[in-house]
């Protein structure tokens, strides 16, 4: 394929002719230039067919060259639905067409177009839902044939991130209005962000023609851009899309692989207008494109849109397109002007003097295929006899290009997201916008200004208003700009129905005029219902080219005005975005104790408890059970060391510290002696157990309360909340991370600790079970607490966080003679289970109260108040619904159940297992389970439905399983 459509310089402002780039399309090598998009490079190589349509598999090609339509969607290796007119070519890029069966040029599914009359709007609602269940059979068929690109399920996400930015003024749109607004805003001293989705600032000035000579646009563009680039107050961001507007001018702006989260005090939306297609038979053929698409091809990419062209216009812009086509060497066969009384501007006057055939009051009634059936071959031009109706006499004009310039819609999406109101002006046949929120303004063609001078003046005015709101501008606000144009650029009815249909209103979804009209006839007359019933506007282009025509058709069919009909709601995102942009850089906060690397060095397998990393057990994963059993055995018979730095730590200090704890926890704390710890069980207002710990009294006005690893923050916040009501004279501080802690446990614990702790009398008499002391361990200031969570003689030693590793090292060294060994969370879970201690959140759920988990002993009956107390009183009057009981499994052949296995009574579920493990100490499986009260009696049996449905008989036993008289922990 030769590069016969490429134009010479100075055409092609975006391409670098010194850099040739080869890529492939449909497995054929294509050559383009750096700066080319896939679509422009293909067009330069005379490849106009890009893909197949969603429903009827019709050939589709360039429509807008602006990244606004679904016709240009192609498949990249890891990116479906990529816009060919937005994706830059790169060496080796592999591009394929989409949604075809066989080949792009010979799509077997194109036959669907022949039966389109049998697939009317919402056909799947009507035809394939009866008899019941039929849709399930049809759905795979339709879904296989309809669709877009294919996702790469092996795609490896690459690096995306986010960044916050702050500006006084954000200007969205880098066309003449945006450039002028940015400059005017910056002149006031405001910091300005200028956002433009294109590679080159200037918007339509880069391609549109504003004078007969064709020089004004470039001149104005260069001058404005030079001033913007020289202005230090302006940050210009190209290839950046403002993809939404959120409250208080929060703007998500996507630029390459980053999502900028911009806060602007003022926003000026200079978002321009979107050119609209005309609607006639076969208006979707490759070769039929918007006038602005042809201009972009010529000016930006130096690509000739075809050899011979017809321009269909409803305004003077079409005449400018004709001039550009002529400049590019395209033979302009005719200009078909829909207007019956056009008011020419200077450009149109110039064109009319060139001798080109101008057919006023005529329309393109139909486009016809060429011999390949994949491209435009000719157009059927007829005189308009009434709105939307043409004469029977026709003239066929052979051409390979048809450029449409029949009107625009303001780019209303962001403005409507901001709360702006979209109306329709019957005189101009245009949508108009109003009611922008405070601190948000619009300017330029989105306001209906089309003359370049008007656009710039309107933008400067908006900027002055915006900067005055910032209180940095003393300039007088100019009066509103008076329109210079005398005739609207919008033709009121560029819509021509055809007996054979195929006049596409919505290219994305292959919706024709009859589909929209029939939706209203089916009773769906509201525009929102038409959208959902027909799917019009629900495709990738989100109604950019269909909303106006649909509104006109629905208004006509329902005998309302277009203003009364309105358009559907515009929601973010403005354009398709990758999920990676929303995800951004992944933040997964992780917490590690100061001893973390000692665990790793000792071969620990780590687990995550919330954000914390904790050692599960020490040893190789395949030997997990042996490791755990060995660690348990060492604690029971010798001495072990576990990192408990993750436990919550909360200081409660002040005159009312005791009173506060008395109200907050279930136990009594007022009479707790200094130097003692007391179990602290926490319930919520519903009497549900939500946390536990120990309250250590280090002074009359000083308690140090521990909380569960996962519950520390919640407990702290709850304390603050309650004291905001109680107003007690108390200070509450979360010091969880301030302390590293270990539990040294086992019969030899005292012996090891005594080597390092000489300023605390560790004897049982001087420092009994549940005593607390302050002193030093290995020379480190420490809080030492005698606790018995694992059921052995044990001391929790809490030291300043940064000394955690040093404490660990010291204890390991001191215990070397005794063969001290670290133990992990899994061993601790088994040890506490043997001791019958519950774990909040594992053995309790959102309904557990203290009585049913056998913790009634931890609830004071004497206190006038505590959180949840009133509810527990009421619950105490009701019979228990379930009990948490200890159980053993005596049958050595029975499988060991798992946590959450059900307790059953015949077919009925009556409870569940909360904890279960094999106890090396008892030599049998033990566990905790919720059972009905009538099964809770010691010695009774209940049934557990184990893995594979195997029923296991469990026997209820008294808790604890081990050391019932607590002699070991009180050594």
């Amino acid at each position: 394929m030769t590069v016969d459509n490429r134009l010479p310089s100075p055409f092609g402002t975006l391409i670098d002719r010194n850099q040739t780039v080869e890529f492939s399309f449909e497995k054929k090598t294509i050559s383009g230039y750096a700066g080319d998009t896939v679509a422009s490079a293909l067009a330069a190589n005379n490849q106009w067919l890009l893909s197949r349509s969603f429903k009827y598999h019709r050939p589709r090609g360039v429509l807008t060259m602006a990244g606004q339509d679904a016709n240009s969607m192609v498949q990249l290796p890891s990116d479906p639905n990529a816009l060919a007119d937005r994706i830059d070519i790169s060496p080796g890029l592999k591009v394929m067409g989409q949604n075809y069966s066989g080949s792009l040029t010979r799509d077997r599914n194109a036959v669907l177009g022949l039966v389109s009359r049998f697939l009317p709007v919402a056909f799947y609602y009507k035809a394939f839902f009866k008899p019941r269940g039929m849709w399930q059979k049809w759905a795979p068929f339709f879904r296989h044939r309809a669709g877009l690109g294919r996702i790469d399920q092996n795609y490896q996400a690459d690096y995306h991130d986010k960044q916050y930015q702050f500006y006084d003024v954000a200007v969205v749109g880098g066309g003449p209005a945006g450039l002028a607004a940015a400059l005017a805003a910056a002149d006031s001293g405001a910091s300005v962000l200028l956002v433009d989705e294109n590679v080159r600032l200037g918007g339509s000035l880069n391609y549109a023609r504003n004078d007969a000579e064709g020089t004004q646009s470039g001149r104005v563009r260069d001058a404005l851009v030079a001033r913007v680039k020289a202005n230090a107050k302006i940050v210009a961001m190209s290839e950046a899309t403002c993809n939404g507007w959120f409250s208080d001018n929060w703007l998500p702006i996507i630029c390459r692989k980053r999502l900028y989260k911009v806060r602007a005090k003022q926003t000026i939306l200079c978002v321009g207008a979107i050119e609209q297609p005309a609607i006639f038979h076969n208006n979707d053929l490759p070769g039929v494109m918007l006038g602005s698409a042809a201009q972009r091809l010529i000016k930006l990419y130096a690509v000739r849109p075809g050899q011979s062209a017809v321009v269909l216009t409803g305004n003077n812009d079409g005449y400018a397109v004709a001039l550009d086509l002529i400049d590019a060497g395209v033979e302009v066969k005719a200009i078909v002007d829909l207007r019956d009384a056009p008011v020419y501007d200077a450009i149109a006057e110039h064109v009319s003097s060139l001798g080109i055939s101008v057919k006023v009051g005529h329309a393109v009634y139909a486009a016809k295929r060429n011999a390949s059936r994949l491209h435009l071959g000719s157009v059927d031009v007829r005189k308009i006899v009434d709105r939307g109706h043409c004469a029977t006499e026709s003239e066929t004009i052979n051409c390979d290009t048809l450029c449409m310039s029949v009107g625009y819609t303001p780019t209303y999406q962001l403005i409507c997201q901001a709360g702006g109101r979209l109306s329709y002006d019957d005189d101009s046949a245009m949508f108009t916008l109003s009611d922008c929120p405070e601190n948000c303004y619009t300017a330029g063609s989105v306001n209906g200004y089309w003359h370049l001078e008007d656009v710039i003046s309107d933008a400067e005015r908006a900027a002055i208003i915006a900067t005055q709101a910032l209180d940095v501008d003393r300039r007088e606000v100019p009066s509103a700009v008076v329109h210079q144009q005398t005739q609207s650029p919008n033709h009121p009815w560029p819509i021509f129905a055809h007996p054979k249909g195929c006049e596409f209103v919505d290219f994305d979804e292959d919706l024709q005029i009859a589909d929209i009209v029939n939706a209203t006839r089916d009773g769906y007359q509201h525009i929102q219902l038409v959208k959902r019933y027909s799917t019009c506007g629900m495709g990738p282009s989100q109604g950019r080219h269909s909303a106006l025509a649909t509104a006109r058709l629905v208004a006509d069919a329902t005998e309302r005005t277009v203003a009364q009909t309105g358009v559907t709601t515009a929601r973010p995102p403005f354009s398709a975005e990758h999920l990676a942009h929303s995800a951004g850089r992944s933040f997964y906060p992780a917490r590690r104790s100061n001893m973390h690397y000692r665990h790793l060095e000792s071969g620990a397998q780590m687990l995550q408890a919330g954000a914390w990393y904790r050692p599960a057990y020490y040893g190789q994963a395949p030997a997990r059970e042996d490791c755990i059993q060995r660690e348990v055995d060492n604690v029971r018979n010798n001495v072990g060391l576990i990192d408990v730095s993750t436990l919550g730590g909360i200081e409660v200090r002040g005159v009312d510290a005791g009173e506060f704890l008395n109200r907050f926890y279930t136990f009594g704390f007022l009479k707790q002696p200094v130097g003692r710890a007391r179990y602290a069980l926490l319930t919520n207002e519903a009497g549900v157990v939500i946390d536990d710990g120990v309250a250590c009294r280090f002074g009359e006005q000083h308690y140090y309360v521990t909380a569960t690893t996962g519950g520390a923050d919640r407990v702290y916040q709850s304390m603050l909340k309650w004291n905001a009501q109680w107003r007690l004279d108390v200070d509450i501080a979360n010091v969880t991370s301030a302390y590293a802690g270990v539990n040294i446990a086992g019969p030899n614990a005292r012996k090891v600790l005594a080597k390092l702790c000489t300023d605390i009398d560790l004897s049982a008499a001087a420092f009994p079970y549940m005593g607390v002391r302050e002193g030093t361990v290995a020379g480190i200031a420490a809080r030492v607490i005698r606790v018995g969570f694992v059921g052995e003689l044990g001391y929790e030693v809490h030291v300043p966080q940064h000394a955690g590793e040093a404490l660990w090292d010291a204890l390991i060294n001191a215990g070397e003679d005794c063969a001290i060994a670290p133990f992990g969370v899994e061993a601790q879970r088994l040890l506490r289970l043997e001791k019958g201690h519950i774990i909040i959140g594992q053995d309790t759920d959102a309904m557990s109260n203290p009585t049913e988990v056998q913790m009634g002993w931890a609830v004071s009956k004497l206190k006038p108040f505590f959180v949840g107390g009133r509810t527990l009183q009421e619950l105490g009057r009701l019979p228990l619904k379930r009990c948490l009981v200890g159980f053993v499994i005596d049958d050595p052949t029975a499988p060991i159940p798992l946590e959450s296995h059900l307790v059953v009574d015949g077919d009925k579920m009556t409870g569940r297992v909360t904890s279960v493990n094999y106890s090396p100490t008892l030599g049998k499986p033990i566990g905790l389970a919720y059972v009905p009260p009538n099964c809770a009696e010691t010695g009774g049996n209940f049934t557990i439905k184990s893995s594979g449905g195997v029923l296991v008989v469990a026997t209820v036993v008294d808790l604890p399983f081990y050391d019932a008289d607590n002699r070991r922990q009180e050594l």
Partner: protein
Amino acid sequence: MDPSISPTQTSRRSSLYRRHSQLGAEFHRFGEAIAVHHYASDEATQAQSLGLADLSTLPRVGFKGAGTPAWAEQCGVHLPHQPNWASEQPDGTLVARLSSSELLMIGDYSGHSPLIDRLAAADRPERVYPLPRADSHSWLALCGSHAADTLAKVCAVDLRPQHFENGQIAQTSLAKINAIILRSDIGNLTNYAIFSDSSSVEYLWDSLLDAMAEHRGSPVGLEALANNR
């Protein structure tokens, strides 16, 4: 200042010391603390551009409670007039007022703070409660002309120098964890002191380095900071 020593020569160790060692850090003693003196031979240029330093082992302390402001003033502390501002004391200690009744006192980069030592030893009246800020919070310093750009990738608050003055404090979320950010320039060097949950310091260190990569930021030692005083 002692010649190079090992961070494990003291019981007080930053959780990041292994990372520092892997980067070839040379540790020195600063007062009673051991911290990174430098990684590379000349980090002054790096600090001017974008550097991250770990000061977690240096002195700091907190006091909280209704009686705290009056007590602190009695002890000769010049208090910032309003919360979320910090003021420098004559001995170089920074006093950050986190609320009307909560103070965070931060020593200078020498590892000495006579004020902190004096307050720690002083008798405290009722309703003045010490807070173990030296352990509850890590202390990182993000410095250089690209520091604000880096923070903009992990924090929603506008911390650009022209909007966030020297001495100003933001108590906010940084890379999804709570943080106290204090702008505390060192001479002409833009610097942000970041205090966050000490157990999360490795996570935060890695997150900041990741955000810094775009601007070619890297860790720097205390020498690079102290040289700007």
